């Protein structure tokens, strides 16, 4: 083929399609691409890594990050951050087992109580940030300490009589049973993903979130109740952290101390890998979902490689940097 013939070849369709997308949507695609790449590399190194069973197992672990990251995405979209995730999650998990005592009869009220705890911590965070002008980093950092102290103190360092209870069978089933050959937990994640996408893309509430994240003064002048929105979003973040705690304790059976610690940085990283701008105003939950899968799949590949602890930690950090450098850079200034 001559060089001249090449120039008149029409652009491939996928390229046109990609160009027609907004940069934010393109980032969501990149995030799914990154997840697929990790699975492909895993399959190359360990035939069977990409098998249905293995993918299901990875998706279940990724869903825990995905739940927490849903709340994190909401507050990051308005330029905030929620550092109180670890101990809200941990406190919620312990509250679930101690209030239900593992009995199915008390499962419903225990779940509601636990979700209410998440909403309450989010309410306090939101009030401090929106009405008392405490920086989000400080307010949620303080709240993390407050929840840590309360959780440890009230449960006497997880030595209380009811602390060793298991999550009720009914709650465990929601996470661990199989529906149509797929773990039930994944349907829950699908529901969260659909709800989040609908909320962000198809409702006034969602439009307001992006408006605040892009320019909160303009949003305020346009008549949006920025403070109320902020409070609501932090409440949702608390709710999702509590949901993460419930699902995690249902999966593991019992609560442990420190079980929430990995979810702080993972929830932020998942959102950012998914193309959510840490400065607010840009991003979709579908990206966060892909980011969660990428992170967990990456860890699974490294585990399958029998990589020592230190190597996993280094590769993990390095991979986040590479992904960020690939598509997370800010625009060139001047």
């Amino acid at each position, binding site marked *: 083929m001559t060089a001249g013939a090449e120039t008149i070849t029409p652009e491939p369709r996928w390229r046109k399609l990609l160009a027609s997308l907004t940069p934010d949507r393109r980032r969501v695609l990149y995030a799914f691409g990154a997840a697929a790449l990790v699975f492909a590399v895993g399959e190359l190194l360990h035939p069977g890594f990409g098998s249905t069973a293995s993918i299901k197992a990875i998706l279940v672990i990724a869903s825990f990050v995905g739940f927490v990251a849903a709340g994190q995405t909401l507050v990051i979209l*308005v330029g*905030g*951050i929620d*550092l109180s995730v670890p101990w809200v999650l941990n406190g919620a998990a312990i509250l679930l087992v101690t209030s239900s005592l593992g009995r199915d009869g008390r499962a419903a009220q225990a779940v509601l109580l636990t979700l209410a705890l998440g909403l309450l911590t989010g309410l306090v965070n939101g009030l401090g*940030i*929106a009405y008392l*002008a*405490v*920086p*989000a*980093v*400080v*307010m949620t*950092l*303080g*709240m*993390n*300490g*407050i*929840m*840590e*102290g*309360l959780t*440890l*103190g009230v449960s006497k*360092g997880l030595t209380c009589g009811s602390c060793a209870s298991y999550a009720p069978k009914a709650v465990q089933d929601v996470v661990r049973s199989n529906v149509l050959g797929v773990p039930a937990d994944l349907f829950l994640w699908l529901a969260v993903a659909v709800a989040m996408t609908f909320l962000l893309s198809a409702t006034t509430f969602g439009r307001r979130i992006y408006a*605040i994240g892009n320019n*909160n*003064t303009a949003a*305020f002048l346009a008549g949006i109740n*920025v*403070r109320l929105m*902020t409070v609501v979003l932090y409440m949702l973040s608390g709710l999702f952290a509590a949901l993460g705690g419930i699902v995690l304790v249902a999966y593991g059976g019992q609560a442990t101390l420190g079980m929430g610690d990995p979810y702080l*940085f993972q929830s*932020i*990283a998942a959102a*950012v890998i998914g193309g959510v701008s840490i*400065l607010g105003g840009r991003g979709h939950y579908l990206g966060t979902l892909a980011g969660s899968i990428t992170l967990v799949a990456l860890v699974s590949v490294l585990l399958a490689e029998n990589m*020592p*602890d*230190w*190597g*996993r*930690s*280094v*590769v*993990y*950090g*390095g991979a*986040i*940097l590479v992904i*960020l*450098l690939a598509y*997370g*850079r*800010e*625009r*060139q*200034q*001047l």
Partner: protein
Amino acid sequence: MTSVTQVPPYRSRTRFQHFTIQSAPLLLALIILAGMTGLYVGLFYRQLSRFPGNFELTSVVNTSMPLVFAAVGQSIVVLTRGLDLSVGGMIDLTNSLAATHMHAGAGSMLVWSLLVLLVGAAGGAINGVLVAYGRLQPILVTLATLSIYQGLAIKTLPAPGGSVPLEYTKILANPNDPTGLGFVALIVVIWLVFRRTRLGVDIFAIGNDEEAARAHGVRVRATKIGAYVLSGTFAAAGGLFLAATTTSGDATSGDVFVLTSIAAVVLGGISFFGGRGSAIGTVAGAFILTLLINVLFFASIDPLYQSFFQGLFLVVAILLGTLIRRLVGMRG
């Protein structure tokens, strides 16, 4: 940020107003420190019927030193409107390096101290280059490097252990006399000089308004890299002091400094919006946090509730700061 900021119309200020606006948060930090010291002495006296003496002062100073260094580094980055989450990993790494490689003898101690500080500077430079040239958000860069430095620390010292020479402990964290106060004085002097150097002035300039600073010929990228290099170096010094205080190493002992260094910076009155504050306030903030733990102990509060009171105290202290800033009419 989420709150609606309103830009006040420009008005000229008197010298005195400028001074109060720049120094009000620092004064507040010093007042909180004085109050916390008073509370500590009072509770101590109530429990033991005597005043805290040389031993208690030495213990407070030695416990505070690693945090003082980590937090001063953190404040330099916060002044540029950045955030350095990797200080925890850097302390892990430098603490492990010191505990595994340093041997008795002036030569080994000197060489390894310098090497460890160099490692800190190099780690900081990596952060700085990624922020300045990679155009990535500081919080994300340092989140990733935190993981990398933590990994390298575990590689260096897989299980807690190792040791640092006794003489080293005597020099950095003398258990008999509060000689650590000399290092605090040194930091204050270094800060007062640094604040007036080209780099120091530029850091404040880009923290206040990056575009304006660029227009005035500030080399924004070089300044940012400089700030992260300093943060890494200070974190490394914190790692050395931690090794000296605990006389051994632990590849995870630095992790707490991610959050405590931020807390000390906040208590020290440094604005998260950059360009306002003083590292002297941060030093006060670090001592406030150490004293708070002692106060809780002497108030016979169940140690399990310790983080509860720390978190509550942090939020209340910030509210006080916000209130005072509103009164003197300064932003963020």
